[in-house]
């Protein structure tokens, strides 16, 4: 491999405990050769951004099923900009109505994966849009 593996933070903001999706994605990304850090449940935007900084990740995958995405996701992308982490690819998935997607994309979420998305689609998207640090 000419590149280091892509480092991904799979994070669960919001108060819900539905971690089936996040854990499946984490395992699938690992199986695809990425280095995955799983945040654990109920992480605040500050905790997530700090973890991204400390772990020096290339990508953050946010899983949220609580309905609080319109409040929480923009806070995370705002904090990332503040910390000059704009180059980190941010994707999200969960229970997110169609009408909320344009606003979330406008605030810096690159892609939203809705229920039923295959892990292969997500892996492909991350590989294509995320440049790992060269050796």
């Amino acid at each position: 491999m000419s590149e280091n593996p892509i480092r991904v933070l799979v994070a669960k903001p919001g108060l819900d405990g539905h971690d089936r999706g996040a854990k499946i994605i984490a395992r699938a990304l690992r199986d695809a050769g990425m280095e995955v850090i799983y945040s654990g449940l109920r992480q605040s935007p500050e905790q997530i951004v700090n973890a991204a900084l400390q772990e020096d990740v290339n990508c953050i995958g946010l899983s949220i099923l609580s309905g609080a995405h319109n409040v929480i996701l923009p806070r995370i992308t705002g904090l990332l900009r503040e910390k000059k982490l704009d180059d980190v690819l941010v994707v999200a998935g969960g229970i997110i109505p169609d009408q909320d997607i344009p606003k979330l994309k406008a605030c810096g979420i690159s892609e939203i994966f809705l229920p039923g998305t295959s892990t292969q689609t997500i892996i492909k998207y991350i590989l294509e849009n995320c440049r790992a640090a060269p050796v």
Partner: protein
Amino acid sequence: MGRTPTGQTRLDKSRRRWEEETLAPSWKRFPPRLPEFTSISGHPIQALYGPDDLEDFDPEQELGFPGEPPYTRGIHPSMYRGRLWTMRQFSGFGTAADTNRRFLYLLQQGQTGLSVAFDLPTLMGLDSDHPTAAGEIGKCGVAVDTLADMEVLFRDIDLEAISTSMTINCPAAVIWAMFLAHAEKSGYSWTNLRGTLQNDILKEYIAQKEWIYPPHPSMRLVTDTIAFATRNVPQWNSVSISGYHIREAGSTALQELAFTLRDGIEYVEAAIRGGLQVDDFAPRLSFFFNAHNDFFEEVAKYRAARKVWYRVMTERFGCKDPRSCVLRFHAQTAGCSLTAQQPHNNIVRTAIQALAAILGGTQSLHTNSMDETYALPTEQAATIALRSQQILATESEVANTVDPLAGSYFVEKLTRELEKGCWDYFEKIDAMGGMVAAIERCYPQKEILDAAYRYQQAVERGEKVIVGVNRFVADEERPIDTLSIESGVADKQLDGLHRVKSSRDGLAVQRSLAELRRAAATDRNLMPFLLSCVKAYATLGEVCEELKQVFGAYEEPVF
């Protein structure tokens, strides 16, 4: 069936003959569609089941009669001929006033029981003004901060005429105290109240993951509510031991069955250790199962559940009261089976799942709405979900006879296999030292995650089909209307909370909280102390925080 050995041999012989002479040639014309046929849980399924698959099958012993041990055929002698299942749609959103309006609407539409969905801050024991509640208030359910919200939630609802289920776990004792306080203030007698508190903390650690305290103090809160219900609210189901969330987290049908019943054993043991007599409280334990896509596996699961629980209660706990040994359950169709793609198809999925729950002998049923992969249901979607149950109940004629699938070689074989698998899991978990110990080493959590991953891979390989997702995909998806919770809800809720906080007797609140904290450090039953707190309008968050000072907070082990 009491077959003689000669009869058995004759059956084997004729089956082999059929396989060779009739079946084999047909494979040449129609080769199997799939290399392997399995249930949705990955359990192998044969092409044909016959009497030879049910060795030593004795219907008297294995099935009995409805309303009699081992209750395989159902817990009531006449099942739905006497009384239909309770149609209990889970609902809640926004403020207490918003949800109260939805409740009154559903009751007017013919719903026969209430089931409260709380928002996430409430489910986590947090007040609406807690920093992490931002964006979550009223979203997944109704926000309840104090007794004042509970009073509005049940305004104009006759609590003695209708039964109420409350889906709440880590702060269940506090929310129940609010409900009991409201009932008392409204002049209802606790002895006439009927309802269910989910109050199942074990499945939270296993699957749904809403917790505050570590397992041991959490179990103490559960046993306190069991003891209090036994003495003071005798018609109340103190725990609804739930497999629903275990299944939603990705378990197989067998894991759902086995972990749920093993959780049940853990509660019974804890209550006995707390000094209760098993026959005093066991009749008020109830269960809650998922109704998933695999129709026959689900029917078999419910039948096996009744049979296993009967044996557990009689053999393991020596129950004498027959009511202690019957497994009563609520079922909800599988939320995780719904698709965001072509959402109208969800109506069909839900109807099939509901039929499985009915033919499996459920006592009450929630049918999901087709739009729930997007948001909480609109009124129209919620109405279709209720109508689906009403169509099954009144038009399909499926409720005319008891346990109609009994005697099906396939269903009886599946029932036996699930039963056997369940005992095997019990043995493993017993060897670990019980369910709390198993949870601490993440055993059920890992089993479920592995099953969830296996299923996801099977879907991605196309071995398991999800219509609209990996087969029969539409070129273009037409969006549907969804319910959005207006942002004004949070402001209204916060205003209400501040009004309560500024008008209550602050000293009385402090006093009741201090008494609660002192009691928490002893082994006294906490319900009377919780009642004093909520009657003084202490908030949910204040009460839960006070207990945390004594009990500590739970950290999920990494696995």
